[in-house]
C-alpha cells in the first residue's frame, strides 16, 4: 500500500513543483531574449543568436519568413526594398497577385527553395539590410542577452531612485513596526492591567477592517498633514505598531518564563529596562520574523504608492514597474518588462533563501497560534 503510493506522491509533487517554477523560468528566459524572438520570431524556448552571410560578411541577423517554394527576389515600382514573391505568380515581367491587377516588377534573382531545402528571409540587427539565404547557411546557437537588464533599467528611467525610495520605505517600516510593536506587545503580554484584554480584543478586531474602508479618509488625513505626494504616508503609520505584529510578538513574549522578569523586578529594574534588557534579547527570532514580514509587505505594496505618490521621482519599484508597462514602449517589449520584473523579484527571493527558517517558522506561527 505505502510502497505503491510513494511514486505517485513524488510524481504529483514534482509535477506541481515544475508548474510552480515554470513562470519564473519563462520570465527569466524571456528576459534574456531579443525582442523579436520574444514575439515568436521564431518560436523557441531558449534565446538564440543567428548568424548568416549578409553584405559579404557573417553577421548576427534576425530571421524573417520562411520560403518553401521556388521564388524570386524582385523590386516593385516605387519601392526601394526588394520583396520575395512565389515564382508561380511571376511571368511577363509582372507579378500577378491573387487579387487585383498585375504589377510590373524587376526580378533581381531566383531562389530555388523547396520544402526539402527551405530558404529564409534575414534582416540585419539594425533592420537596414535584408537578404534571402538557404536555411543551411544560418547558424544558430544559444546566446543570453544579459544586456537586456541594463536596457530595462534604462527604460524604467529612474530605476535607481525607485530602488532607493523602496528601500527607504522598507527600512523605515521595519524599524517603526518592530520597535513600536514590541513595546505594545510587551504591554499586552507581560503587564497585568484592567481593560487589557478588552483592548486586545479590539486590536484583533481591527485586523478585520479592510484597507479600502479606511482608504478614502486616510487619504484625507494625510492630505491635511501635507504628506500626499511624499513617501511619508507609506511609513508614518508603521511607527504606531501594526496589529498583526503585535499579535505575533505577544504570543512569543508570553512563552518567556515569568521567573526571569520577576527576578529583574526584585533587583529593582524598571519595567522599560526589563523589556529592553531582559525580554527583547530573548525574542530576537520573533523580531526577525516581524521585520521580514514588514519588509516584504512594504516591498510588495502597490495600492499605497498608487494612491499617495504623484511625482515620478518618488515612485517605488512596484509603481515604477507598472508605469513601465503602461508607458508607450513597454507594451510590446516583453524582454525588458520581464528583466525589470526579475530585478524586482530577485531581492525577495534572495531574502527568502537567507532567512528561510525564520520565514517558515513565522508563517507556521500565524496559523497554529490563531
Amino acid at each position, binding site marked *: 500500500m505505502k510502497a505503491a503510493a510513494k511514486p505517485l506522491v513524488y510524481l504529483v509533487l514534482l509535477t506541481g513543483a515544475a508548474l510552480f517554477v515554470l513562470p519564473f523560468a519563462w520570465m527569466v528566459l524571456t528576459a534574456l531574449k531579443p525582442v523579436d524572438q520574444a514575439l515568436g520570431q521564431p518560436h523557441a524556448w531558449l534565446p538564440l543568436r543567428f548568424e548568416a552571410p549578409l553584405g559579404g560578411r557573417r553577421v548576427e541577423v534576425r530571421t524573417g519568413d520562411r520560403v518553401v517554394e521556388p521564388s524570386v527576389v524582385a523590386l516593385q515600382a516605387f519601392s526601394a526594398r526588394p520583396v520575395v514573391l512565389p515564382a508561380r505568380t511571376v511571368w511577363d515581367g509582372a507579378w500577378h497577385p491573387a487579387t487585383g491587377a498585375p504589377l510590373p516588377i524587376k526580378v533581381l534573382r531566383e531562389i530555388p527553395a523547396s520544402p526539402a531545402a527551405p530558404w529564409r528571409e534575414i534582416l540585419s540587427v539594425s533592420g537596414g539590410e535584408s537578404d534571402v539565404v538557404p536555411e543551411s547557411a544560418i547558424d544558430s546557437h544559444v546566446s543570453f542577452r544579459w544586456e537586456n537588464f541594463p536596457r530595462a533599467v534604462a527604460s524604467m528611467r529612474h530605476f535607481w531612485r525607485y530602488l532607493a525610495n523602496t528601500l527607504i520605505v522598507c527600512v523605515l517600516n521595519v524599524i517603526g513596526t518592530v520597535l513600536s510593536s514590541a513595546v505594545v506587545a510587551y504591554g*499586552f503580554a507581560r503587564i497585568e492591567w484592567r481593560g487589557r484584554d478588552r483592548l486586545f480584543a479590539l486590536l484583533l478586531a481591527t485586523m478585520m477592517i479592510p484597507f479600502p474602508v479606511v482608504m478614502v479618509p486616510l487619504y484625507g488625513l494625510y492630505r491635511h498633514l501635507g504628506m500626499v505626494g511624499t513617501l511619508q504616508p507609506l511609513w508614518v503609520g508603521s511607527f504606531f505598531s501594526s496589529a498583526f505584529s503585535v499579535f505575533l510578538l505577544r504570543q512569543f513574549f508570553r512563552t518567556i518564563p515569568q521567573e526571569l522578569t520577576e527576578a529583574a523586578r526584585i533587583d529593582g529594574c524598571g519595567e522599560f529596562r526589563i523589556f529592553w534588557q531582559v525580554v527583547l534579547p530573548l525574542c530576537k527570532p520573533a523580531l526577525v520574523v516581524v521585520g521580514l514580514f514588514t519588509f516584504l509587505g512594504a516591498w510588495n505594496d502597490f495600492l499605497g504608492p498608487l494612491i499617495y505618490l504623484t511625482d515620478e521621482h518618488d515612485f517605488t519599484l512596484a509603481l515604477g514597474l507598472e508605469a513601465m508597462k503602461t508607458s508607450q514602449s513597454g507594451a510590446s517589449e516583453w524582454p525588458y518588462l520581464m528583466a525589470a520584473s526579475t530585478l524586482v523579484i530577485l531581492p525577495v527571493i534572495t531574502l527568502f533563501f537567507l532567512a528561510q527558517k525564520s520565514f517558515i517558522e513565522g508563517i507556521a506561527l500565524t496559523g497554529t497560534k490563531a
Partner: protein
Amino acid sequence: MKTGEARRTALGLAFTSPWIVGFAAFTLFPVCASVYYSFCDYDVLSRPVWVGLLNYQDMVTDRVFWQSVSNTLVFNLMALPIGLVSALALALLLNEPVRLRGVFRAVYYLPSLVPAVAGAMVWLWILNSRLGLLNQALEALGVSSPPQWLTDPAWTKPSLALVSLWGCGNTVVIYLAALQGVPRSLLEAAMIDGASPWKRLVHVTLPAISPVIYFNLLIGIIGGLQVFSAAFVMMGGAGPERSVLFYAIYIYQNAFEYRHMGYASAMAWMLCLLIMALTWVASRLARGFVHYPSE
C-alpha cells in the same frame, strides 16, 4: 494595593500607547470620517456637501456596483475553494516522509512572496493568447482554439484565479505546520483499528486541523474581498466588459479616478458590513466542523 493597580494600568497604557494613538489616528478617525463622508458629496478639493442617504440610494440602482459585487463573489467562489483544497492537498503530500521536503516547500512557497505587480507582469505574458506559454502549450497538446485568457470576459476571472492559485504557498506552509502538530498517537491508534488512509484523513487529521482550515478560510474571505493589484495591473482596471471590476477596484475608481469620495466611502462601509456578515456566516458554519482541542 490600589496604587499598585493604578500604577500597572498606567504602565500598561504607556506601553500600549503607540497602538492606542495609532488606532485613534489611523483607524478610528478614518472610520468615523468615512461615515460622515458617506452622507456627503465630496471631491477632496472642495468642502463636502451633505446629501443624506443619496449615496446609499445610488448604490442600490447602480448596476456597475452590483456587477462589482457579483464579480467579487464569483471570483472568490472560484479561487477560494480551489486554493484552500489545493493547498491542503499539497500540504498533505509534503507531510508524507518524502525526500527533499525543504526544497519542495521552498518551491511551493516562493511564488507567494512575489510582489503582486511583478507577478502580474509575468502572468500577463504567460496568458497572452497568441504568444503566451499557456496557449502555446495547449496548442501543442492539440487544443485548436485555446481560450483568450485576458480578452474574453468569460475567461478573465478564471485567469486571475489561476494567478492566485500560484500564490497559495503561504497557505500550504500554514497547513503543513498544523499537520505536523497532529498527535501521532491518534493516527497510530486509528491505524491499529485498521482505518484506511482516507478514513484516517477524514476522521482524524481533518478534525485535528479544523481550526487552521477555519483560520485560512477567514483570511481568504477577508483578503478575497479586497483583491486589487493583480486585476488592476493585468487588466488595466476593470478588464473587458468590466468582467474583473472587483469591489476594491470600483472603490478606487470612484475615489481616485472620478473623485466621488462620498460614494466611495459609502461603498467602503457596505464592504465592512459584507465582511462582517460573511465572517458571521463562516463562524456559524464553523460551529459544526471546527474542533478545538481541549486544553
